[in-house]
């Protein structure tokens, strides 16, 4: 998968993952991996800076939670802003998806 497509899809992907509830970095990585069947493999050095940046921008928020044996995990969740951005992103991606779909079915029809 191309680098620019990964970069473009990172934010909407994170937002979408958080839609079903709060999550933490390692889980997000695992989820992306399993969702894409191993195709998308984000590095930690990519994920965490993006999470921090999104938090600064206010589309997600974080809080520390204990996770047994005195271990702490930083959980991220969507904010209202995040939801709005996700709506907009969703629309864009669907549009693109629809466009491709129509193009390809049309092309198959000609064949």
């Amino acid at each position, binding site marked *: 998968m191309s680098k620019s497509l990964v970069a473009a899809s990172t934010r909407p992907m994170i937002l979408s993952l958080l839609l079903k509830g709060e999550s933490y*970095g*390692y889980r997000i990585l695992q989820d992306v991996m399993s969702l894409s069947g191993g195709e998308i493999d984000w*590095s*930690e*050095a*990519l994920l965490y800076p993006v999470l*921090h940046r999104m938090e600064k921008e206010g589309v997600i928020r974080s809080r520390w939670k204990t996770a047994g044996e005195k*271990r702490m*995990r*930083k959980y991220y969740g969507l904010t209202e802003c995040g939801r709005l951005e996700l709506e907009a992103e969703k629309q864009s991606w669907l549009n693109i998806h629809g466009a491709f779909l129509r193009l390809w079915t049309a092309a198959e029809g000609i064949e």
Partner: protein
Amino acid sequence: MFDFEKAIGRWRKSFHGSEAIEEGALEELEGHLRDKVEDLMGRGKTGEEAFAEAVEKIGKKELLDEDFFQAAARKAGGRAPWKKSRFGAGLMPNYLLTAVRKIRRQKLFSFINIAGLAVGLACCAVIILYVVNELSYDRFHPASDRTYRIASRTVNAVGESTGVSTGNAMAPTIRREFPQAEEVVRITPPPENADHVLAVCGDKRFFENRVWFVDESVFRVFRIPFLQGDSGKALSDPFSVVLTESMARKYFGGEPALGKTVRLEIDYDTGATELEDFRVTGVVRDAPRNTHFKYDLLLSGSTLLRHLADYDTDYLDYHFDYTYVRLAPSADPVAFGGLLQRVAEEGARVYEQRFNRPAGKTDYFLQPVASIHMRSRFQGEIDPPGNWTYISIYSLIAFLILLIGCLNFINLSAVLSATRTKEVGLRKVIGAGRGQLARQFLGESFLITFLSFCLSLVLTAALLVPFNRMAGTELMLGGLAQPAVFLPLLGLLVLVAVGSGAYPAFLLTSFRPAAMFRGELDTAARGAWIQKALVVGQFAVSIFLVICSVTAFRQLGFMRGQALGFDLGKKLVLPVQSNISHLRRDYEAIKADFLKNPDILGATISSSVPGDIDEGGYYLTTREGDFRGAPRLLVNTVDFDFIRVFGLKMIAGRPFDPANRSDINEAFVINRAGLKELGLASPEDALGKRYQAHYNRRWKTIIGVVEDFHYRGMRENVRPLLLDIEPSLLDTLTLSVRTTNRDSVMKHIRAVWESHFPGVPPAASFLDERFDRLYRYEEQMSRLLALTTILGLMIACLGLFGLAYFTAGLKRKEIGIRRVLGASSSSVVALLSKRFAGLVLLSALLAGPPAWFAVNRWLQEFAYRVRPGGLIFAAVAAGALAIALATVGLQGWKAARKNPVNSLRNE
């Protein structure tokens, strides 16, 4: 056993000092790491393997730092603040400040440094300008690459000769028959008085010697910009004259010259000469110095037709006539050669018809106009040609003086920078990298080089004034803007800047800062051999220059002072340039009038005086009319008194005798060299031999032989010479005067002159001054050499001074201890001087052989020369040593005089 917690601790530690990973982020990463490890162990890996893989996956500090920073930054691609600057631009003001402080704190050194280089650069710039100017002759004419002068090579019974003159019909023939010649122009000097045309304008009278008859096309072939008048029409009518600016000012003051009249006396070789009116039809800019065709008055060529009816049709080369042609780019050289061939054959045909004897074989060929100044050395050149020898010598001098300046500059810069170890140490401690420091030092040396360059421009402008006066050139500072001058200089400046910055930039920055602070490092010692080499280089070049200039001056003195074989002093030479028939008819009476004053010891009339005797000569034969393979002697026509007045020594026979009037038609006198040319064994053999001269077909007898005298200077061997009494060629009066009553003598001379040649301005000059013109190149070179030598030596001494100063500083403690233990001042001076004496002697040894070679090469130019003795070399070496020791000794003395307490107090 693998301790997971300890490993985590170490991992955390590796992130110490990270500026990008904010608080909490590391904890988050740690959580991530733990999750990953657990996960991996769940899949059966050992703790150690899992940890290593997880750490690997997360990445190293540097990578994370960069990613975290880039994600947080507002601007993509920016530089993180903890990273090294890519340009060091942030420190620029600081570097500049440091450089300025350094210059201000060490005023003397900085001055020596900057001034030394500036002087070198300025000398070099002047000489480069001169050389480029010499090489730039005649390149500014339109299409100068396609413009040629027609020259000839003639082989006849008596030998081969080359010339630059053609028959008058050459130009009209080319114009008529060869349309691919875009332009053709004839330039003809006044037939018989080219070097002294009398110009009368109102009550003002002048002699002009740059007067030419030219075809109208001259303004299209040569670049001659008009100030007034129309270049297309100015010379279409006979008796038109185009003046240069300065002539117009000389004749008419500030008034407009156009339409005014100038009266000129031109000798057309038709018998009588009279003043004719020429109408001014144009004013042009003065002829530039860098053209071989120099002019003051340009007269319409059609004027000549009024006096010489065959000016357009004569194929023979009676009068000088220079033909220039501009060929079209497509012109066929073979076809043109064929045309020249036809002209030559036509000339030969006319010659045979007219003189009824076989003509020699003449070939015409083309000389590119831009090559004339440096390459053409034929008979009848318009302008004295340039001299390659001196061009090369000047270039070498320029290079050497610059070399001294640069060596000095590099040397002093190195010395100065050695005092900056602490600065370098401090900069390194607070994080400067080597590259950064190197850039700082290089930048500094570029700054200083630039300052030198600015100063050298000022110096160049100042130097050009005396130089132009000395060399007779019109060089201007603006000439430096030509790429041919500018680019090499620029390249050289960069080289100097890098060279002088290299020592601190690369050596100084390589030391460890701690060592620099502790003063463990004898930084100077590490670069000392470079400095020694530089000083040796400077001194070697200086000594080389000194030897050369001393020899040049000795040779000049020799050529002036050596018994020239004739009496050079106190001779007043008066060329008679108008009313010459009066001189030739009544010269005895005129001489008698001059001799009435007792302070005038002698008077003689001749066709030339020593120093001016030209290539003109007679072929002499013993078989009536047969001059094949005949010997040729240069000739000077004289009167009865010439031998006596010039003090020539007879070695056989007798001089011309006034009591014996038949000497006029009967007698020759030759010089010793003439004996050999005529194949005579001894002077006595020559007496009574009869020869016929080709010039006037007269038979005369040799009545005497004079000892050789150097009538053409000492540069060439004395050539065979014939002295002949021939009144019809006399034109120069020489008076031997006593200068004790200078005023009354001059008054008498003026009065007699005025009575015989009324209205003709006298053009008197002393023979020794005229004779010196033979040596003008040598004279010019010696002066230039002397100047550069002195400057070079000064710079070299400054360099040595700097080094001595520095060494004295280094040895401060040693000197202090020696003083405390009782050493005298003089022994301290000796301590410092010893090592430098060796360096200077080494320089002398290095400079000796090349100087010997160069000096001998130059002396080969002269037939009579001094011998470069070993004594001179020794004297020069001793002189250099003395100067060097004086420079160093001063430093040593100062160091010795310091109170040792001050130098020993620390530590």
